[in-house]
């Protein structure tokens, strides 16, 4: 599936048709990510609920949510994994890897959680 992962990664990187803006982090350490709600919903129960009609507020068809308790560097990894199902952890710092473990648990991305855990053990 390497072709699929590659193509989906380009979808994330050149997200010109995005419909979700996620403001990650707090204060100075904040970054906006652009993504596609369909993909996030499909990959994470957390996003599935977060983007359900009961909870979202849309402006010009754009969904904006905050995720202050996750660092942008970590969220970037989360997003990459959500889109491609692949994540190379060897280049990451130990601290980020632990944060990734915690975040994947919070966002209920079980697959990623196991991936990180396997890496740690």
């Amino acid at each position, binding site marked *: 599936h390497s072709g699929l992962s590659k193509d989906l990664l380009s979808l994330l990187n050149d997200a010109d048709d995005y419909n979700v803006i996620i403001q990650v982090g707090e204060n100075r350490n904040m970054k906006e990510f652009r993504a596609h709600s369909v993909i996030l919903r499909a990959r994470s*129960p957390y996003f599935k*609920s977060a983007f*359900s009609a*009961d*909870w979202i507020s849309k402006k010009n068809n754009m969904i904006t949510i905050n*995720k202050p*308790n996750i660092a942008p560097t970590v969220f970037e990894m989360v997003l990459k994994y959500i889109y491609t199902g692949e994540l190379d952890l060897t280049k990451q710092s130990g601290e980020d890897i*632990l944060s990734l473990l*915690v975040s994947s648990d919070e966002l*209920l991305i079980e697959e990623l959680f196991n991936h990180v855990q396997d890496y740690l053990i």
Partner: protein
Amino acid sequence: MSSRKQPKGKIRPPKKPNSADAQFNDNWDRLAQAIREIHKKNASILSFEELYRNAYNMVLHKNGDKLYNGVREVITQHLEEVAVSQVVPAFPLSGASSSQTNPNGAGGANFLKVLKTVWEDHTTCMLMIRDILMYMDRVYAKTANVPLVYDLGLDLFRDTIVRSQNYPIQNHLLEVLLQQIKLERENEIIDRTNVKASIDMLLELTDASTKDTVYATDFENKFLETSSEYYRVEGQMLVGEYDAPEYMKKVDKRLNEEEQRVRHYLSQTTEPKIRNIVEEELISKHLKTVIEMENSGLIPMLRNEKMDDLGRMYKLFGRVVKGHDEMKSAISDYIRELGKAINETVTSNTTAEGGNAASGDKQTGATVAVRWVQEVLDLKDKFDKVQNLALSNDKAFQTSFNEAFEYFINKNSKSPEFISLFIDDNLKKGLKGKTEEEVDSVLDKTITLFRFIGEKDVFERYYKQHLAKRLLLGRSVSDDAERGMIGKLKVECGYQFTTKLEGMFNDMRISSDTMTDFKEYLDKSVLEKPKLDLSVTVLTSTFWPMNLSASPRCNLPPELTKACGTFQNFYLGRHSGRRLTWQSNMGTADIRGSFKARKHELNVSTYQMVILLMFNDKQDGESLSYEQIKGESDIPEADLKRNLQSLACAKYKILVKEPKGKEINPGDQFNFNNDFTAPLQRIKIQTVASKVESEGERKETREKVEEARKHQTEAAIVRIMKDRKTMEHNLLIAEVVKQLQSRFMPNPALIKKRIEALIEREYLERATGDRRVYNYLA
């Protein structure tokens, strides 16, 4: 290591317990507030991310149980409030027994409507609460083995609203639901959406102890009980007020309504149960009453051929266990009754006819037979039609009808003779108006009656007699039709049944060839040619119904005796070792009679010819007495009387009898009727061709049949013993019965007698050790 174990490093338990408690309280306060806002439908001011994070943190910090219990409390409080502020005020006005004051069930409908709103609000809120507590569901509820929060919500709704301990909500709910259904049964229009909403709600709630739905535990039984009672009353009312067809239509409608009801707003699991109740109360309990309804029940429907009603009854009654049995037995009884009536009209006719059997009323006998068969066929047609149009060709019904036909047909001991006569009538008169196809179809139907006959050997005997007369008197429609009929019999009874009948045809064919040869022989011969044309049919005695030992005597005129002699020489010259016996009772003759007015050609029987020729020597006006004719001709008395009747008492009076009258008595005087006139030149003096037998003849036939049965029984015994060598008494009897029952039903006493006769003649012996066992002696 559990996958959920808190990872080391960044996230640690907060150091100060106080600040942890504070954190918890803060988180929980926000969550509780948020849930309240959700209940107030103010969710749009809330942040999913924040609430989720709050709950997440609480669970993460081992406060999952506190969170869970807190949520339970908030929801319970809310539902209590809903009960007081919304549900209780919506109770129908006069409480549980409100049907009188509330004839349209408006209060009830409103109550259901409120409940519907309450339920919908609750489920909507629970979905949102589930969203924000998803982490609790996934991490806490699983390990603590408690229901997921949505299910918790359902349980709370069940206990706080539906089965509230504080308010009689449950009573009202059940009461209103049942009342709504009752109103609908009484043709009121109800708002099905509200009822359906409540039913769906009950279906979604689960009873904790039975794990069944609250619908099943709280509602269904009550529904079934009231339905039972409702239809019990309705059933009694309906049978009293409506006739059978109307009753069935009502029941049909009810069944349909209940089915629709289930489909629209009850659970499918209730469908068979409510159907059973309607079937039990409206069908099973009134089966007999409806079947036996005067002027409209099953028998009147049959009588008036109400196929739609019959079809409806068949379908409707087929739903219950005894339904079809009751119908079958009622119809069978009716068939037997009708059959008995047919038998009775015939018996009364034949006894009347038997009384003046000697009066020369020749047609009546055959007519009675034809009419009997025709009536039975009509009856058969009628029930075939019923079977076809109303009973879906149900095999079980067919079997029971067949049994009924078999029963009454065999009640008439003359049925084998009648059926044979009926066939005779059709094969003889077939050309008069009926096409070959029509005759064929009538004969096909007749075969179905033939199947019902128990004594097929008796039928065979009569059939042979009637066929013989048709063949010898040239009365048959056509060879094809005759052979067609024999083909049908062969299919029914097999080859051995029809061999002799086929032999009769063979004799006819061979005789025709023989006569051609005879003519050639005469042409070439130097002998004096006979003064008359002689046509002889040579019959193989075993094929034809004749009795050689009692061959009919008759003094033939010399001319004829001479011609017979010539033929005899010719024939025996070709076939040595055969014996010819003249069957003068079976022949016919064409003679020319000179009357005052004109000459006529008379086609008469051999006996009639013999009688008429006696008058050749007499002067005009000179008479012969009965005794003279009898003495001179030597014709057997019964035959003589019958033939004299044909000549002197029937349509063409060639002879004049003194004194006048229909009966021939000793002392009667006969004169040649010189004044005889008739429009046609050629006259056929009707001979007694086929008619129902007189009692005497019947007795004789019966004896012959019994005699034949003895032989057949012995043959069967020998056949079986030859094969088995040794056999126990009862087994042998059973086997013999099995072999013979296609022809007749042998009784064990008869078989036993035949076994003894065979032992006497040393075909069998009793086994030395066991007297109930026989050995075959080769």
